[in-house]
């Protein structure tokens, strides 16, 4: 049966190819730092289940050291010039979108096909991870199509994939790190503490106040952390699960999905989410570095109210 382990092995191979691309990009003076970072990530994906928890913890520390001590760089070099790209774009036209669409279509249509046909019981793919497995299949199919159609140099996907990965850099593992932080927070009892504090605030029995505190808590915690991903596991452990789902019988899918979206309203309002709010202000050469946040607040607040209403109505009354 094809399950997540196969996908992790494939992803590890992709990360190893980023390492190879980093070594090949001779214009990047810190290329060995980049190569080390992607190699460690590849090891984590290949052997994570064999290394034990402390072993994985050490891998994390190495990744953090490489990023934290600025041992990674990026290369400004492009594989083809902008002029060449414009000519390619004229030559291939909108057909260029098709290989990019193979990936989401394989994941989306493939999942539907799998779930509603006899394939589900065939034992070919683990039903719990079917979407991601099909995403991986989509990547492989798209690569084959690109090779056959565009006839690129053999190392082109490695070099171009690595170029994009190095442009993102250490930020690529930040969501996963924040998820790990959430796990440590949970074990150290942060969720319990916030839940206990919240429990003092919530008069039990008021579903609406519970929803309000959950959504506003997501926003506040997201603004502090700069990322809804870190806030979510804590708020679910503190209020979402024990109060809204378990005590008040709310619909778990709504509490989960819309709770996260309430957090995104917080992301729109915080300088901590630098990549969304501060970097664009710099890119657009705005005088006020908080100019983007300033125009986002009047969208974020009404949208937060909408999310609270969706949580309350769809979560408890539909």
């Amino acid at each position, binding site marked *: 049966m094809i399950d997540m382990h196969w996908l992790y092995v494939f992803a590890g191979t992709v990360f190893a190819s980023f390492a190879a691309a980093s070594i090949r990009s001779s214009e990047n003076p810190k290329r060995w730092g980049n190569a080390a970072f992607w190699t460690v990530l590849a090891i984590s994906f290949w052997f994570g289940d064999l290394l034990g928890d402390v072993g994985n913890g050490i891998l994390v520390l190495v990744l953090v050291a490489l990023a934290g001590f600025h041992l990674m760089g990026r290369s400004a070099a492009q594989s083809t010039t902008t002029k060449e790209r414009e000519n390619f774009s004229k030559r291939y036209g909108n057909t260029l979108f098709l290989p990019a669409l193979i990936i989401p279509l394989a994941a989306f249509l493939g999942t539907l096909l799998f779930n509603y046909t006899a394939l589900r019981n065939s034992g070919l793919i683990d039903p719990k991870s079917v979407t991601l497995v099909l995403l991986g299949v989509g990547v492989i199919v798209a690569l084959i199509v690109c090779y056959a159609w565009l006839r690129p140099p053999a190392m082109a996907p490695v070099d171009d994939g690595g*170029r*994009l990965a190095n442009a993102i850099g250490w930020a*690529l593992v930040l969501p996963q790190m924040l998820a790990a932080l959430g796990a440590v927070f949970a074990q*150290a009892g*942060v969720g319990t503490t916030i839940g206990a504090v919240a429990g003092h605030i919530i008069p039990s029995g008021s579903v609406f106040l519970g929803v309000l505190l959950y959504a506003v808590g997501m926003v506040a915690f997201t603004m502090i952390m700069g990322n809804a991903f870190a806030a979510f596991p804590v708020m679910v452990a503190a209020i979402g699960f024990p109060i809204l789902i378990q005590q008040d019988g709310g619909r778990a899918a709504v509490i989960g*999905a819309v*709770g996260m979206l309430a957090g995104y309203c917080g992301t729109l309002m915080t300088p901590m989410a630098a990549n969304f709010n501060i970097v664009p202000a710099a890119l657009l050469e705005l005088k006020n570095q908080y*100019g983007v946040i300033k125009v986002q607040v009047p*969208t974020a607040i009404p949208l937060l109210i909408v999310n609270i209403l*969706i949580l309350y109505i769809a979560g408890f009354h539909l």
Partner: protein
Amino acid sequence: MIDYWPLLGIALVVLGFALRFNPLLVVAVSAIATGLLGGMPVLKVLAALGHGFNQNRNVTIIYIVLPVIGLLERYGLQQQARSLISRMRGATTGRVLILYLAFRQIFAALGLTSVAGPAQTVRPLVAPMALAAAEKEHGELDEATAERVKAMSAATDNVGVFFGEDIFIAVSSILLIQGALRAFGIELTPFELSVWAIPTAVCAFLIQSLRLLLLDRQLEKRRR
């Protein structure tokens, strides 16, 4: 008696970000400090961090698409996306940005979040188009107005991607929600979760569009 010490880890995150340390470093230091303050021995904290990282590898899976996107960019994907949008050029700033909002939300909902963004599309394409539309309709812009139009372009990009991406079933936030609820014994498929991103996505589109139409009106008033 509530033990408040573990909350210090949150303070460390705020401080670390405020002082502009590397976010990975801030997160790791905060995790270790929180664990120690929560009464866990050093090795156990390291193990908890490693375990959490290993268990959440699915969050990073999405980057296996980079070789395909990189290869297509080599053959002009971005240039083609630009020429496609520039042919959809509408009359006013608000309409240009509403079209972009729709484009951004739909592409994000298909999992194509990285085909656009502040560096890829907003600076080279969207902001100049929004400014050009404003100038065409309302003449030369003063600095404050130009700044507002540019800021709205970046904001529209953020709103589009934030409230579109969760409709795609394999995006990392949906997988994170699934994992967080699984920890409490609740098994949900990504599909069940992503469906509930649709009502908010529609409302986000309506609210941001309304604000963009109001922007058009303010630009119009300013001229008189």
